[in-house]
């Protein structure tokens, strides 16, 4: 089950955060996403040690805890996508695929002439699109 997806700006500021839980506890997701930036920073600063290819946007599993997993993705413009999932088993390929679609949706959203770069994304269609991507991934992983 995907718990949350988030878009983080170049300055590590939150641009978008959508939770897919029924509960009203976004704040803890904010915390998780925020803390995951530590790992992204480390990976980006030490790409060799982390074993990421230089031109690879997908950062892989950022940190596993017992209860949830955080995946990361870094675009060329240093915008980060974060995925928090509570699924015990997520295939890397699925996550990678998810992020690719996420990226496309993001590009569409920021191409909106009324969007101010660097500001929070308020587009509802972006949110809808993300939900459908998340639902898709959910159906893949559950199958």
């Amino acid at each position, binding site marked *: 089950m995907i718990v949350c997806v988030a878009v983080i700006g170049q300055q590590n500021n939150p641009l978008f955060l959508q939770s897919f839980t029924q509960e009203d506890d976004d704040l803890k997701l904010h915390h998780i996403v925020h803390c995951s*930036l*530590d790992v992204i920073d480390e990976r980006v600063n030490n790409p060799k040690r982390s074993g990421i290819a230089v031109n690879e946007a997908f950062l892989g599993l950022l940190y596993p805890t017992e209860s*949830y997993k955080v995946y990361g993705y870094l675009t060329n413009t240093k915008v980060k996508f974060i995925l928090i999932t509570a699924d015990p088993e997520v295939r890397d390929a699925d996550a990678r695929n998810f992020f690719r679609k996420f990226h496309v949706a993001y590009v569409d959203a920021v191409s909106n002439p009324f969007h101010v770069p660097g500001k929070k994304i308020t587009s509802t269609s972006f949110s809808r699109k993300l939900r459908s991507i998340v639902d898709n991934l959910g159906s893949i992983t559950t199958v």
Partner: protein
Amino acid sequence: MTNYLAQFQAIKNASDRIVVAVEDVSELWPIVKEKFEEKLPFKKASLNNKTRNPVYIENLPAEFILTTDARLRSRVPQELSLFWFREPYATIILVSCEDLDEFKTILKPRLKLIVQNDEREWFIVFVSKALPDNDQATKLAKKVYSRLEVDFSTKKRERCCKFDLHGNDSSFWEDLESKIVESIRNTLDRRVQFYEEEVRKLTEQRFMPVWSFSNFFILKESLAFMFEMVHLYEDALREYDELELCYLETVNTSPIKQREFGGFDHGDDQAMLLKPDHKPLTQFIQNDSFREFEFRQYLFACQSKLLFKLSRPAEVSTRGYSFIINYSKLLASHENDLPFCLREIWVITACLAIIKYTTFHYDGGLVTAEVEKEFYRLQGDFFSLSRVKFMRLAYLIGHGAEIDKSPVNSAELSMLPWPRPAVWPLVPPDVSSEIFEKEKIMLQSNPTAEHFGIQRKALPLEPSSLLREANRRRASLSTPNLSDLSDGRQNLKDGSGVGGSSRFSPQNKERSSSMPRTYSSPMNIESSHVVLDRPMRLSEIQVASEHALKKTLSDPDLWTSLSSKQNFEKKYMELTKGAADNYHRSWWKRHAVALDGEIAAVYFRHGDFDLAANSYEKVCALYAGEGWHDLLADVLPYLAECQKILNDEAGYLSSCVRLLSMDDGLFLTKERQTFQSEVVRLAHSEMKNPVPLDVSSLITFSGTHGPPLELCDGDSGTLSVTVWSGFPDDIILESLNLTLTVTFTADEGINAIKCSNVTILKPGRNTIILDLPPQQPGSYVLGVLTGQIGHLRFRSHSFSKGGPPDSDDFMSYEKPVKPVLKVFKPRPLVDISAAVSSALLMNEVQWVGMVVKPINYSLRGSILHIDTGPELDIKNSQMIEIENSSVFVQDSPNLVDTEITRNDANLESCGNHKRLVLENGKIELPDWASNVTTIVWLPVCATDKKLSRGTSAACPQRQSVLDGMRIVALKLEFGASRNQKFERTVAVHFTDPFHISTRITDRGNDGALLLQVILHSQVKATLTIYDVWLDLQEGFEHIHKDSGRPSSSFFPLVISPSSRASILFSICLTNMVPGVVSDALQSDSILNIKYGISGERTTGAHEPVSESSDGSKVELHFKSAIFLQRPVLDPCLAVGFLPFPSDCLRVGQLVRMEWRVERLKETESLSSTGNDEVLYEVDASSENWMIAGRKRGHVSLCSKRGSRIVVTVTCIPLVSGYVHPPHLGLPDVGKANIRCNPPGPHLVCVLPPMLSSSYCVPI
């Protein structure tokens, strides 16, 4: 083979170093033992590792054991090649012999026997007991030793060495050590080979039924242990790694045996991750079954032991963390069978153990920065993990109230599943008092005080309702239907639980934290007896968990930490601080700072507000810095509260401002109003140290839309500024100032402008008008907004972009610097010039026009100061007129028409004309004249008391223009506040209407003179002459003795502008009595002219201004003085110079000079005297001329007119050259009466004398 396990364990425990056997043939060991053992451990040893590469080992420990020792004797060689590692690695045969024969007969066969058929690595140490001074004995010993060498050493290998008991032994010890090491190396190689072979064999049989993991384990571990003994830790570690891998494969791939997992022994809850000897192997390896619980920990312990020996504690951490995570999962899969919460306790103890040991071994030296960061990060992870588990346990047993419901804790706990025992622990009997106590605590625990009245839903710490989870597990075995029913009812009632929370709206969910408490209300306390079919209450669950935990938990310290609230908090702080510190060291600042927030929360609860504020500040700075406002909004109220309590007014104010400037959705309007009221309250209170408050995020400002305000240099104005207020309510600003910054110049470019009034800012957009004093030229942008709320000064630096205050300030782009004000460089704003350049009438009241021309600048309200110079007066100050210059331009072609039709009345009505009143030398320009070019007409009169003078036409003397110049000094004060000044001095030219010149055109024989008076018109106006008369001076008179008026039929005579007219007067001379001095008045003749003028003031001279203009022509009177001079020449005699007889004059030559004197006129005076003689005199320079004859004398000349006489004088020129000739003068006759005709030459040429030839004798 598993039978050997106990033995194996014992062997391992017993032997910790390699053994070197000593075969003491000659009973020497007691003598040399001490010396031999002194040399241990071996300083340097070169051994081969598993891949046959040499490895240098320092300080290799070893032990010498006599072959006769019980430890070696008891072993049955070759019995168990498995334990080969403990066998001696070298054998030293100690011999001594002083007799060759003895050697040959006894010793040699014995030695042969010892070394025969033995795979041991041996060598012989020959001990020579000979004293150094005993040569014979020494020689003998040498002989025996050489014999020994011959017999036992081979070419390939030296197997003998000699030890002089009393001699120098340094070389021996080196030799001995090298030989021992060589033996050890060989033995080790052989044994490694053996073990490898065995392992290979076993591996080949891996998938056969006979294969046993325990055999493999013993082999592998033996090999590993052997490596460890010889300090080849890397190889040992590799063996353990392979062993672990193989074990995991076996465990995962062979489902054959339903193995026992383990974990039920007392103390199993404590991880034995770093203690390989914690449990004997036999305890968890039975019948080829390895209890996974212990065995995996055992393997990890062995590995970590080796890693510590390799000084790689960081790797222990790395391996440890993934081990714990994986192991925790493993425990989770067996959780049904394991004791209650064993998994949680195990993780806590494992983490703490690894932290303890790695910290102990980690010295921080010789590692890269990355490794160091990684190490601390892992330490942080361990602390964090143990902290989570610790919180989970504490929550289960009822310390939930002490756990802050922060995002950190919620993120960690709410997604972590509850323990899943097969059956939830039951409430033990006789615990009603404990249950009662728990209930009491729950009722007493106050919900955390919310600051500023912020009502937030507490974040969950439970993954699902504990009540439901516990009851479900408890009842699942007994009466599932009943429990489901009751659970369901419960869920419907309180809306908590997994299903409940997903089905219900957030409003319902909000009660989830409080409902369990209401459910466990005191009403139910009496029923402490728990029946199976009744759901447990929360307090009962807690008590039951506590008791179950107590059973599981074997670590007394951990139990102490959980036993009371104080101890819990102590441990909680220890773990949190540990995690935070380590994360800080590892540069995971976000993790660290978030935990700092947790520490701060505890400090806050305990009243350590100072420490709490410090930590909260760090947290807030981090969240604010990266724009995580949701998280910031959670923490900032606490910081504000701390600052309030600590009386840190500046901090508190700035926190309030930050709270106010948060995104709109984060706080309710009511809460924001509270923040504002706090700010206002503080602002109006007496602050001890008032500090300027930065409200950039709250109050922003920008210039108004559209082009910037444009001002001329020196002008003041008003600037309109849009100010956005982020306050939820109106706020009163006691003052408001704004600085303007000059763009493109760095220095002195800041000017403050002020809005002095009290301003009330509405929420949202406000427009403020500020007075703008005169500014330097340049382009200005808005700088800083400052102001005062109560006693509080504030400042704002931020520009708004036409929206509400921008909260994401850190992200804002380069702000477009739009100038709000442009002050132009000084330029002419107005011009004042004379309207007419041609001359005006002197001594008459004339209009002087001043063109006031604004140059793209409004003259509204401007004042014109007029100061006339000397000899110029403004007549009638009531009559100053102003008119539009365009009218003037249009009208100018038909001057005459306007002249006729214009009157004051219709000018008044046309709006472009007005009469102004001069007061104190100034007039105020009307408003309609502010933007158009106007002409101000001043009625002035230039006075000139001098009478104008006529001139002679023969030698015209023009009057100087300056005589008619008059000066008008003008000063215009204009601009918004009459700040602009324009000063100009205008010269106006005045003149008489005519310039008179005279000449005598003819004279009659009767002495009548025709005097022509020429009138030059000096003005650009048509002059009409009505009458002219001439009052003659003494000595002249009109011929007919009349008034001298010309014929009246000529008048009126019209003279066009700049044209001339002339009038002839016939006058004659009168006889004057010489010596009578005439009056001054009569010295000049006066010409009087009566004239009229018709001209337009816009072109030049015009009719004099009069108040009552009735349209009738005004006759003007002009007087001019004319000086007539009587004729001066009256020749009576004419003297003529007769030409020389010869052409050239020479020096010394006689010359006759002849002058003819002729009487021209018979004068009465001459005739009356009767004297007809004329006195003559020749005047010549005596240097040039010698005069022969009379120079002076009388000649008689008839007095009749026309009589003539010639005067002759002979002269001799004395010098050559051009000389003045002699001159004939008539001394008695005045010069005026002599006419020279023909006149004499001025100079004559005198040649030098002729050359005398008589003196020239040819030679």
